[in-house]
């Protein structure tokens, strides 16, 4: 006769087993069509490129070496690969500017929404949500309509007689930056709004009672309280910006590549799969560093997360 304790233990064991069975389909699909292939990318980064794309199963560290270096074809010396370095730099700096500028526009917007009466607030949030759920490609294309040579901006400026020749915005870094700000802005506004919504304006009132000026109230009271939202928003903007592929392809016009385009190039015309695999992993590591930064900063202010 089993004791009550043993019966309870057995029931718990069965419960855990059932829970593994129940989650198995999701885990297996994700393993087969996401996680598993990522592990294979790691293996591919250590192989030798095949002559027509693909790989030859021979160990080599050349893929990793050529992420940042290039071998001189004549005397076999190594030097920094300027082309790759400039793409890394473009990816990181454009992602940084995108984050700062979306914060610059997103913060007042979130503040504006949070200080509306509850009824109208919902409408404003909805207006931010719609572009957020609209296809990224369509929004990139929409941006192109505004900045191309015969587009909205140039037509308007020429009609007003401010410029004679259309401004060349398309196919520049500025075009990519504009596109990324436009597309990732909702990702900044929504988390800041979520923190701001819970802001207790009695604290602001108390600040004014104690003779704080507007700037002091903003900097010393409001900003510290919504910092979790700002950090979350910055991460949500920075990470997809780093891995951007469609925006630079459509607005940057081939020459102004970011990391995503450099990766695609290696798997396409570049025919250097191991190098492409190595850059992919580098990009993933950059993303992980950004995430770790977020986790470390967010854990200190857990209370305000709700």
């Amino acid at each position, binding site marked *: 006769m089993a004791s009550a304790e043993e019966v309870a233990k057995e029931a718990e064991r069965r419960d*855990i087993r*059932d*829970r593994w069975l*129940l*989650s198995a*389909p*999701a*885990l297996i*699909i*994700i*393993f*087969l*069509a*996401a*996680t*598993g*292939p*990522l592990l*294979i*990318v790691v293996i591919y980064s250590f192989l030798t490129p095949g002559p027509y794309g693909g790989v030859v199963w021979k160990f080599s560290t050349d893929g990793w070496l050529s992420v940042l270096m290039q071998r001189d074809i004549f005397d076999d010396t190594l030097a920094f690969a300027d082309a790759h370095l400039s793409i890394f730099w473009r990816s990181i700096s454009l992602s940084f500017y995108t984050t700062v500028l979306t914060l610059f*526009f*997103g913060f*007042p*917007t979130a*503040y*504006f929404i949070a200080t509306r009466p509850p009824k109208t607030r919902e409408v404003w949030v909805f207006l*931010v949500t*719609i*572009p957020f*759920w*609209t*296809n*990224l*490609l*369509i*929004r990139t*294309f*929409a941006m*192109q*309509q*505004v900045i*191309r040579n*015969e*587009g909205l901006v140039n037509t308007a400026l020429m009609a007003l007689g401010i410029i004679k020749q259309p401004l060349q915005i398309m196919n520049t870094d500025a075009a990519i930056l504009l596109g990324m700000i436009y597309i990732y802005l909702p990702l900044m*506004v929504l988390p800041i709004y979520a923190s701001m919504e819970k802001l207790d*304006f009695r604290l602001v009132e108390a600040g*004014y009672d104690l003779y704080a000026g*507007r700037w002091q109230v903003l900097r010393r009271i409001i900003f510290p309280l919504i910092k979790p939202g700002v950090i979350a928003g910055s991460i949500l903007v920075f990470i*997809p910006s780093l891995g951007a*592929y*469609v925006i630079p*392809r459509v607005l940057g016009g081939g020459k102004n590549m970011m*990391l*995503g385009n450099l*990766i695609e190039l290696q*798997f396409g015309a570049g025919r250097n799969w191991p190098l*492409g*695999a190595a850059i*992919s992993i580098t*990009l993933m590591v950059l993303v992980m560093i950004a995430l770790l930064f977020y986790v470390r900063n967010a854990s200190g202010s857990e209370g305000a997360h709700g």
Partner: protein
Amino acid sequence: MAKRPFDIQAQPGFGFMALLTFFALYLPIAALVTYSFNTADSLSRWDGVSLRWFISAWHNSAVQDASVRSLVLAVSAAALSTIAATMAALATTRTRPYPGLTFKYAFINQPLMVPEIVTGVALLIVFSRIKVWTGYSGLGYLIAAHTAFCIPFAYLPIRARLDSMDLTLERAAADLYATPWKAFRFVTLPLLRPAIIAGFMLAFVISLDDVVITEFVKSGGQDTLPTYMLGQLRRETSPEINAIATVFLALSVVLVTAFYFVNRRKP
């Protein structure tokens, strides 16, 4: 309490910045939609309003093909991922922490952590091999890939709903001699329905919108609507692309609005 001479919630210039931001959010979309009604052959002229390009897009067999493929793919991926996500959500909520629970959370959310371009090339590497080995190059690869990255999105609302439900009602059902299956079918499932619908719709929209992963996984002639549009953007674009984009946009707005109402209705 003394009345202040100013509104304590006001910050100078914030309202202006916010309105500017909203204007900037909608200006490009307005431009895109406006040009789709353009009669002219190219985007550089404006010849008046007509439905010319909508009609031309409607009769374009490549567009018809891509639209049907997009829908089939989105429905299949959304259905499969919602089923898998519902099961996973049931397995990971309403329990004491057990070994492997944190691992499951991390694993289910893994597709969200990796840039799409990286997942895209990873799948290209693996699936191109499998295509050679098996000779099969149908829609199955795209369905598998989409299902995998849709699972975390479908999982989100379902888990949130389960977290706010306790086991009282299921226990009551068990006390009244309901089998576990009957308790699930007649108690848990009806309570969960709004969240499952929300999860399905989220997954559907995510699958419908995907460009990057599809671009790398698709075999020749397997364009979805977004990859078809991406391909067209390389050439000199005609207003036909605007017309397709406008219809796509309208569809997204309808779906988001529907999602909004499904999610807001608190049972």
